[in-house]
Each structure stands twice: as C-alpha cells, then as structure tokens.
C-alpha cells in the first residue's frame, strides 16, 4: 500500500503545482499585464517584500514549496533508485532524499516567514 500512497500523492499535488506555479509565473513574468508595472519593478526589493507580506502569499508559497518539493524529490528518488543499487544504498537514497527535502522545506519556509514578518524601515 505504501508505494501506491506515495505515488497517489505525487499525482494529487500536480493540480496544486500547476495552479500555484502558473500564478507565480504570471506575477513574476507578466507583471505589466497583471499589475501594470514593469518586470524590473515587479522584481525590485520593495515590491517583492510588499507582495510577501500578505497572508495569502505566505500560505500559498509554503504550499507551493511543499507540493513542488514532494513531487520533484519523489521523481528524483525514482530516477536514482532505478539504477542498480544494493538494498543498503537504496535505503540510504530514500532517507537522504527525505532529509534533504525537509531541510530545503525548512529553509524555504524560514525565508518566506522572514519576508512575511519584514519590518519596513528597520
């Protein structure tokens, strides 16, 4: 059952990634269309912080981070484990990828929280 559950989750996060990543692309690359400001302006520090201070951005970024990391690292685990590995190495790959994913998720969440709680002017 375990592999079925892992794979089902890999599929379930796809719509989350498509919607949130698509929105992220739209905001960052098509700022003139959606925000009426140039791309350079949209990527400036001030505008970036202002965007990051909304609760919606905070929650959705963390959701995108979790979904993207799970989907990508499940795929990467599949690719690496398709190589001929000993059972010990296979276990190491599984554990290593989970730890790496948790680390990157933790780091990304910290950066998102830092942005959310940024005090303008110091």
């Amino acid at each position, binding site marked *: 059952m375990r592999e079925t559950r892992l794979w089902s989750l890999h*599929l379930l996060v*796809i719509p989350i990634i*498509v919607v949130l*990543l698509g929105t992220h*692309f739209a905001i960052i*690359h098509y700022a003139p269309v959606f925000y009426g400001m140039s791309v*350079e302006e949209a*990527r*400036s*520090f001030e505008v*970036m*912080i202002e965007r990051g201070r909304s609760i919606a951005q905070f929650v959705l970024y963390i959701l995108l*981070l979790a979904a*993207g*990391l799970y989907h*990508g*690292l499940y*795929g*990467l685990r599949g*690719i690496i484990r398709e*190589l001929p590995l000993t059972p010990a190495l296979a276990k190491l790959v599984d554990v290593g990828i989970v730890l790496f994913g948790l680390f*990157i998720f933790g*780091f*990304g969440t910290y*950066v998102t929280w*830092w*942005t959310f709680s940024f005090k303008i002017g110091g």
Partner: protein
Amino acid sequence: MNSNSPKSYPNRLGLKGWVYAGRYTFERYLYLGHRLSGMGLIAYMVLHIIETANRMRGVEAWQGLMALFASPPFKVVEYLLFAAAVFHAMNGVRLLLTELGFFLGKPKEPVYPYSSSVMRHRPLTYVIMALAGLIIILGGSSLFFP
C-alpha cells in the same frame, strides 16, 4: 544454469537504455524528455530557493542578483527553463490521465493488425504536444519579438 557452466555475458543496456535502445515510437522519447526536464526543474527549484534567500542579505544584494538575472545569458536560461516547465507540465497532464487508465480504450480480443493503447491515445498526445509548442512559442514572444 549450474555454477559450472561458462559465464554468460551480461547484456543489460544500462543508462544508454534510457536514451536509445531501438527503433521505438516517439512516446519513448517523450519519456526521456519528461525525465530530463524533470531533473532540470528540480535542480532549478532548489537553486531558486537558495538564490531568492539572498533577500535576507539586504537591498543591495537583492538588486545585484536581479541585475545579474536580467543579463542575456540568464534570460536564455530562463526561457529554456520555461520551455522545460511547459513541456513537463503538458506531458505530465498526458501521463496523469493515461497512467490512471483514461484515454487508452477498453481491453478487447487482439486481432491482427494489433492496436495498442499507446497508438490509441496518439491523438491526445498530438493535441497536448501542439498546445505545449504553442505556449512555448507564445511565451517566448517577448524574447523573440521584443
């Protein structure tokens, strides 16, 4: 095969087998493209999380980074990443549907010349690849036609 028999030659294709193993149809190359684009995207995602963390080093560090990413070589890489993401997403939609058994037809007695589920969902594959091509070209319009 007892242990006294002469040694067989291990004939496993190995990693080469992911790239080329025979004159197979193009779905096999869509599999390769999906794998390569996926690896590129996960590598980019991890790098992206690390580089956007530069915001914590202050305004100047952030602005320096944005200036670097606005330079031409980075714009090309950005576009290639966009193309990889669109291909991976569109092919992924095809895989999401077909790996759950949709658009593959119904099992029936095989009568020569045999049809296969891969051939039966070709029309869907063509539509999805055409859409992906369209989005990739349109998305690069600002790059090609500034």
